[in-house]
């Protein structure tokens, strides 16, 4: 049962991901992206990580995908299907994408992932919270600072020039 569900979610995720990059209509690709996020959330649920699944939906679907759609809607010229599919940055991006894929593939295959023994804890959230302020306090804070910086930067860019 678990395996069936996993393959189902995997197919949904990968299929939707392919649609994201092949659909000509920008808004439709954004909607396919949402389906990708849902597929990933489903896989999280299968891994007994409900918290991550919900956060995945909340942050990726609720905020990031929404903002992408918003940006797409505001620039309607871009949505013209007659526009060329590639622009002059296509090669650079392809190079970086390949590099990223290689790095990820190496990491996935080379690192010895620790496998949890036994069932997942019932109330994993509390453990997660304790870990955030305990052993992982420094990365957590660094991520927060990064986000704050990004937010301030966004505000400065968006501010009207007087």
């Amino acid at each position: 049962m678990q395996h069936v569900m996993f393959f189902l979610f995997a197919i949904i995720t990968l299929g939707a991901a392919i649609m994201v990059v092949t659909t000509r209509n920008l808004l439709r690709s954004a909607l396919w992206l949402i389906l990708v996020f849902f597929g990933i959330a489903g896989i999280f649920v299968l891994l007994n990580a409900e918290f991550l699944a919900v956060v995945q939906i909340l942050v990726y679907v609720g905020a990031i995908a929404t903002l992408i759609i918003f940006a797409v809607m505001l620039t309607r010229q871009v949505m013209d299907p007659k526009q060329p599919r590639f622009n002059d940055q296509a090669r650079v991006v392809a190079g970086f994408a390949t590099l990223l894929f290689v790095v990820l593939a190496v990491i996935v295959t080379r690192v010895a992932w620790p496998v949890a023994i036994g069932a997942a804890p019932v109330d994993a959230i509390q453990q997660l919270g304790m870990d955030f302020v305990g052993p992982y306090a420094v990365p957590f804070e660094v991520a927060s600072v990064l986000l704050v910086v990004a937010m301030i930067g966004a505000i400065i860019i968006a501010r009207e020039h007087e």
Partner: protein
Amino acid sequence: MDYIRDFFINFAHSWTTWISGGLPGWAVTVVNFLLGGLILVMMPVIATLALTWMERKVIGRIQNRLGPNRVGPWGIFQAIADAVKMLIKEDIIPDRADRPVFNLAPILIFVGAAMLWAVIPFGRRMIGQDLNIGALYVVAIGSITTVAVLMAGWASNNKFALIGAFRVVAQLLSYEIPMVLSIGVVVLVVGSMRMGTIVESQWVPFCLVLPVAFITYVLAAIAETGRAPFDLLEADSEIVAGYFVEYSGLKFGWFYIAEYGNLMAVSAITTTLFLGGWRGPFAGAAPVLGPLYFIIKTVLVIFVLMWIRGTLPRFRIDQMLAFAWKVLVPAALVNLLWVAAALKLPVPQAVQYAVMLVGNLAILGVTLTLLGQSAKQHAKRHGLAGA
């Protein structure tokens, strides 16, 4: 007698036992899941039928009218007549609409409205699925609604719908933050995100302990459901109906059902988080009373929301966003810090609650004073000495 006392739960047990007699184990699970799903799907529909009638009656009374009184006694079948009308209407799809997206949006918005009901505790142990992240789940499901509204607004190929969709993004994203912050306060006090646990730990309703969180949540919830005075996404006097202006017939009906389903769900969540859910006099001794209390409290919240709709004009988009970011978010943040600090005090829980209440009242007072002053300044800017 015991059977009656815990009627719903015992009934569920008997049901499962009964069908297990003739069916294999996996089939029992499937049947029960299907039944549960059916109940979830039916909840928004039932809510719509009941609430449209109630809303028309309540607003009718507010406006010196009788409200519906022709179809059935007190017009109670009015909603059914409306539903029939909606079913037999022509289904129109605009010529240049993005058809798949256009058709998917009503389904998605209804799914969002139905899924909320999974975590609402109607009574003790009467809950679809007592998720350990229940409170967060409620917020996450809300984002599905956002996506559905965006899809509807864009796919309609209509400028009013597009403006409505723009407003939706600004409004829902802004009000999600005070909403999460006020739910966070409750979660902090309870120490769990389980809806059941949240209700069980309210020996005193949280609205009396955390009035700031309560008010913030209700205001944010009104905005999330897009009801007056925050109904900018479908502002009928400005952008006609906003994102669903091009929908007709049953597809419009899905939006309608989702709207009222969300209204009821949000009121139910307010009841759960702040009004003590199914708790009430003798509910401990006779759990069958629980659902009754729950529904009474929910309807009370709905009534207040209808009252607001019948009496207040609408905010403008900039005022509304300013209200979220400049009033609700700071108040909720300060409240969160205060409550977190109060929880660390080495005193009995009752004293902690008292400290929270004092802090909440202070935040409320300061917020209202600042609001009053800014209103006076606004008036002064336009050369007026107050109204």
